[in-house]
């Protein structure tokens, strides 16, 4: 790791105001950093806070109830958590861009895709019409849309799901942002199209040096893409490390259970029982003072229910928040 990461998040807490009582924290004390040109995957099941984390980096939390309760989000020496709305408008798209799961709902249905991409260049760089259009066209070529000249004047509904996601990526990258935030970008796509889009993101990353934060629930996508991985559960980071550290020695019981529950990682082979994780993710108001995973954990002891395990460094860059995580020697033979 370099001394000066591109993005560093320190103690981020996302809270929602509640009509009867104090605000409820949906993400708590999240800290991570992202280096230039790196891919960080944030993994977890629905409700773990991974999308809220992404939205707070863009300062797009649902208003008026969602807010950044505490923490700093430092991007190139500036704190996004406290930046003004005017500053944020300049940062979005130019410093940090986001693509979403369902491109159809994120594209404007009544504007051609050419004009939607051009608009980005016009707003951020103030170029004239022709130059903007040219940049948009170049971008469509870069994301490998067939017949880009003709497609420029198409509306979103005329494109397939995979093509729309390519347009989203073109729009996100047209102003050369430092960071691309991708929230489940391939979840709505078929496997062969998913493979195309992941390959495209990988390829563009190498070409432009953009750092990528990829949010996903699929460890297969993580294995394919990640340099580093952060696993979240019930609003907290429970394990993080390099992709190799995490896949070689998954340490938190939740990470282990999640991998074992996926048919793909099932070592026993087909037609055997999958490992189940009993119960479901606790709701926001049901999270106690101890480890959030304790009620579902096979290893849980009294201590786990009573106090929250801190994130402890195990080896290299691998850290785990579990009272039962052994010493590094035990885990890395």
């Amino acid at each position, binding site marked *: 790791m370099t001394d000066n990461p591109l993005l560093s998040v320190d103690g981020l807490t996302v809270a929602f105001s509640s009509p009867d009582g104090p605000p409820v924290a949906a993400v708590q004390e999240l800290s991570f950093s992202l280096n230039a040109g790196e891919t960080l995957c944030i993994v977890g099941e629905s409700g773990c806070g991974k999308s809220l984390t992404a939205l707070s980096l863009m300062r797009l939390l649902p208003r008026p109830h969602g807010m950044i309760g505490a923490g700093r989000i430092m991007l190139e020496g500036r704190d996004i958590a406290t930046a003004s709305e005017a500053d944020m408008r300049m940062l979005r798209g130019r410093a940090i861009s986001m693509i979403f799961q369902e491109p159809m709902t994120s594209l404007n249905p009544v504007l051609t895709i050419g004009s939607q991409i051009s608009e980005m260049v016009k707003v951020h760089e103030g170029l004239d019409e022709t130059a903007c259009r040219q940049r948009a066209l170049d971008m469509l070529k870069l994301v490998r849309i067939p017949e880009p000249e003709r497609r420029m004047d198409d509306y979103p509904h005329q494109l397939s799901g995979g093509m729309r996601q390519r347009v989203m990526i073109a729009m996100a990258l047209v102003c050369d942002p430092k960071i691309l935030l991708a929230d489940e970008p391939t979840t709505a796509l078929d496997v062969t199209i998913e493979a195309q889009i992941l390959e495209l993101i990988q390829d563009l990353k190498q070409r432009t040096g953009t750092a990528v934060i990829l949010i996903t629930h699929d460890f297969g996508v993580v294995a394919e893409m990640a340099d580093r991985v952060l696993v979240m559960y019930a609003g907290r980071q429970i394990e993080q490390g390099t992709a190799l550290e995490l896949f070689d020695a998954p340490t938190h019981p939740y990470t282990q259970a999640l991998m074992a529950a996926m048919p793909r990682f099932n070592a026993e082979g087909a037609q055997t029982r999958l490992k*189940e994780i009993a119960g479901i993710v606790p709701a926001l108001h049901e999270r106690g003072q101890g480890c959030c995973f304790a009620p579902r954990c096979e290893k849980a002891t009294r201590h786990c229910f009573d106090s929250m395990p801190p994130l402890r460094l195990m080896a290299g860059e691998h850290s785990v928040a579990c009272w039962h995580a052994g010493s590094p020697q035990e885990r890395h033979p």
Partner: protein
Amino acid sequence: MSNQVATPPALDVVNLSKHYELAGSWFSNKQALVYAVDDVSFTLGRGETLGLVGESGCGKSTLGRTILRLVEPTSGTIRLEGEDITALSAQEMIARRQRLQVIFQDPYSSLNPRMRAGEIVGEPLTNFNRGTAAEQDERIAFLFKRVGLRPDQRQNFPHEFSGGQRQRLGIARALALGPSVIIGDEPVSALDVSVQAQVINLMMDLQDDYAISYLFIAHDLSVVRHISHRIAVMYLGQIVELATRQELFERPQHPYTQALLAAVPISHPRDRRKRITLKGDVESPINPPAGCRFHNRCPHAVAVCSQERPPLRPLSQDHAVACHLVV
């Protein structure tokens, strides 16, 4: 799977097609046909799981619904345990539904939000007058326990259950009349990974206990691989390859199957490699390409592929493929 010659298979589907007519535009009389399901044949053995995979728009859900007679087949034959049900009237079909059930993808939209969970699961019993009220009650309690729900949750409404629990309700309802065949249309696709494992295990346990046959429709190859005995791969309305699980994953023959398997994300970062990705999107089933429907995207296509449709030919007892280039 039963080896007795005398027992007909749970399901026998022969040359089944479902074509939809698209309304022509105001100015032309030309009618376009959607070949949603086109000349599909397969059998489903007793106590067997046949996985049906393919990408969106390949017709796998329409095939499931056609077999259920929820949409009317254009041509072909469907036999349920040896009985031809293709031409039965809606009235006659009702009785057959005791043996042929379905589990849908979205457990929320397939449960009536105004009915209590116990009523939802018990409705089939009432409809078919199975036993006295007390017996039905007992059966409902048994079903709740069997699928891993607490019998006291019978008073709750669907919105009070989590996604996985709702899918358990859907399974309990399908199970109520003791069916021999269940068609699962993406039954675990909407669920989180940890919950998905619970539901897959439940479905496999039920199969062991009651010898139910599953037609398991899904797009996730790793799930299908886990649960299926045999797997059929669909592309644009047709089955392009049909084989036992092991055969299909170890010796995929059709170029589309190969591409589909290659597109599955890996399970360890050390396995990263340059992938052969398919070019282009799935074509439209409206007036699909002549010849082999995959030829436009196929990396190996030759002249004959665009002219003649390859039939599904058996390579061995447990492997059939529809490709001109496989000999």
